[in-house]
C-alpha cells in the first residue's frame, strides 16, 4: 500500500522556536489517524506543512506531491478544516455551495444539500448571521461532500454540542470513510474519536512521542487495577503511570506481557486519554 503522507526529517522553525522537529512519518491509505498532543505541541504546524500552508525543511510528500509546489493540484485530492471557524463573513449558504461546486471537480452538491438538511441553516443565510456552531456545520457540510483522498480535520467539532459531535463522527465513519480515503483528526476530546481511529500518533514538543496502530496499542499497553497487597510487586515492573481510584492503584504498563499482569489484578486496555496523560507527563512542569 503506498503512503498517502511520507515525511523524512520534517522540520518547521519559527525563528528560534522549533515547532516541528525532524519528524519521520508514513501514513498509508485507508487509515483514520488521531494526531493527539497538548497545546503548542506542533500538531497544527505539522498539518499546515502537509497542506502546503507553511514552508518547511526536510522531505515531505503528500499523495506523491510536494505541498509547497503543488498546493492547488493537491487540493483536488485533499480537504481540510482548520482549527478555527474561517468562512468569510459575507458568504451566503447557497453561494458557498455554488462556489465550491464551481471550482471543485469532486464536490457533490446533492450530498452537501443533504448534509445541510439536518441543520438549521437556510440557503440565504450569511455566515455573519450564524452562531459559531452553525459556521462549523456549514463548513463540515461542504467538506464532507467532497470526495477527497485525504481529509484533515483540525479540531473539527470545536464549538459544537455533544449531539452534533456524536452524529458527525458517526457519519464520518459510516458514510464518508472507505478504504481509499485517509483521515487525520486532531482533537482534545480524545474519548470521542477513540472508537473510530485505526492509528494513533502522540506528538510532544514537535516530536513524535508515540506512533502505533490501535491493535498495537491494545497489545502493548495494559492497565491493571492492583490491590494493595500486590502494589510493591507491580511497581517493580516499571509502570509508566500510576493513579489511585477508590483506594486501589491503577497502573499503566508498556510492553509487559498480559499473563504476567493478570496475576497482579484486573487487566484492561487503557483509554487513549489515560495513555495520553501518562505519555505527556511533565509537559507543563
Amino acid at each position: 500500500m503506498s503512503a498517502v503522507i511520507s515525511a523524512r526529517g520534517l522540520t518547521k522553525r519559527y525563528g528560534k522556536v522549533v515547532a516541528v522537529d525532524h519528524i519521520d512519518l508514513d501514513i498509508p491509505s485507508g487509515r483514520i489517524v488521531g494526531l493527539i498532543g497538548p497545546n503548542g505541541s506542533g500538531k497544527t504546524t505539522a498539518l499546515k506543512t502537509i497542506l502546503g500552508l507553511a514552508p518547511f525543511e526536510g522531505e515531505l510528500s503528500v499523495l506523491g506531491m510536494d505541498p509547497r509546489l503543488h498546493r492547488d493540484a493537491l487540493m483536488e485530492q485533499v480537504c481540510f478544516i482548520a482549527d478555527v471557524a474561517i468562512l468569510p463573513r459575507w458568504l451566503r449558504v447557497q453561494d458557498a455551495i455554488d462556489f465550491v461546486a464551481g471550482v471543485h471537480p469532486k464536490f457533490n452538491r446533492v450530498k452537501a444539500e443533504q448534509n445541510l438538511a439536518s441543520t438549521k441553516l437556510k440557503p440565504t443565510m450569511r455566515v455573519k448571521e450564524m452562531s459559531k456552531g452553525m459556521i462549523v456545520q456549514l463548513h463540515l457540510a461542504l467538506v464532507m461532500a467532497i470526495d477527497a483522498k485525504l481529509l484533515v480535520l483540525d479540531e473539527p467539532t470545536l464549538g459544537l454540542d455533544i449531539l452534533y459531535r456524536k452524529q458527525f463522527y458517526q457519519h464520518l465513519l459510516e458514510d464518508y470513510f472507505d478504504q481509499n480515503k485517509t483521515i487525520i483528526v486532531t482533537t482534545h476530546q480524545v474519548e470521542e474519536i477513540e472508537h473510530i481511529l485505526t492509528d494513533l500518533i502522540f506528538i510532544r514538543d514537535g516530536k513524535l512521542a508515540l506512533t502505533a496502530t490501535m491493535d498495537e496499542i491494545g497489545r502493548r499497553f495494559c492497565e491493571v487495577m492492583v490491590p494493595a497487597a500486590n502494589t510493591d510487586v507491580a511497581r517493580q515492573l516499571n509502570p509508566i503511570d500510576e493513579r489511585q481510584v477508590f483506594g486501589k492503584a491503577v497502573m499503566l504498563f508498556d510492553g509487559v506481557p498480559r499473563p504476567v499482569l493478570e496475576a497482579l489484578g484486573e487487566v484492561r486496555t487503557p483509554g487513549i486519554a489515560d495513555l495520553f496523560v501518562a505519555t505527556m507527563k511533565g509537559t507543563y512542569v
Partner: protein
Amino acid sequence: MNTFKWLLQREYWEHKGAFFWAPLVVGALMTAFITISMVIALSGAGDGLRINGVNIAKLAAAMTPEQASAFAEKFIFSYAGITMPIFIVLGICIFFFCLGALFDERRDRSVLFWKSLPISDNATVLSKVVFAIGIAPVMAFVIATVTSLIIVLVVCVAAAAAGVNIFGSVMTNPATYVAPLQIAAILPIYAMWALPTIGWLLMVSAWARTKPLLWAVAVPVMAGIMMSWAERLLSLGVDVAWFWKNIIGRLLGSVFPGAWLSVDKRMPESDSGSGALTAFSEVLQQSWQLLAGANLWLGAAAGAAMIYVAIRLRGWRDEG
C-alpha cells in the same frame, strides 16, 4: 476558465456594496439633486431656471432655433462630465478593494478556507486584478451611462417646461450617443494606466501583517519627503517634483479615472467652441495617445511585476 468565472463571482458577492450599490446610490443622488433643482427653479424661486449659466426663461422668448441648438450643444458637452462623481467613487472603491484584497482574508483567516480549495494563487490574485480594472469599471460605466441619460431627459423636460424645446437638438446631436461610447473607449487605457497602483496595493495587501493603508501610503510618501529633504539640504540635483509625480503619484493615484489627463496637463478647453463631439474626442484622443509614450507602458510593466510579487507572497506567506 470556469474557476476564474467563479472567482470573479466571488469578488462580486463580497464587494457588491462598493461596486454596485455605491455607484447606484451616487447616480440616484445626482439624479435626485438635479431633479429637485429643476423643480425649484421652475416653481419660480430664485431668478428662474439656469442651465450652464443661461437663464432659460429669459432666453426662451427670443431664442432662434440656431440658438437653441447651440445651447443644446453646450449642454451635451457638460453631460459627458456629469457622471464624474461616479467614477471618482469608483477610484476610491478600487483603491480600498485592492488594499484589502489579500489582507482581509488573512486577518479573518478565511484564507485557510480559500486555500483549502483547488485554486492557484495565480488565479486568485489575477481574478482580483481583473475585477478591479475590468468588471468594476464596466459596472460603473453602465450605471453612469444610465444616470446621464436620465439626467438629460430631466433637463430636457425642465427646459421644455420653461418654454425651450431642446429635445430635438439633444436627440439628434450625435454627441448624445457617441459620448458614452467615447467613455467606453477610454476604459482599456484606464485599465492599463491603473496597473501600477493596483499592483502596489495588492503587493502591500499580501505583505503587510497589520495596517496595510499605513504601509501603502506612508512608504512612498516618506520616501518622497526624504528625497525632498535631502534635495533641499544637499542640492543633489535630483528632480524631486518628477519623483512625486511619476513615482508616488503613479503608485497611489493611478486608480482614479482620468488621472492621466492631469499628468499631461492638456485638459481640453471647455469653451473651445468646436462643439461637444470634438471636445470629448480630444479627451479620448489624448488618452489613446498615451500608448505612444513610455509612461503608460513602464507603469503597466511595473504594475505587472508587483502583481507577480503579490502572487508569490500569497503563496509563501505562512498563515499564522
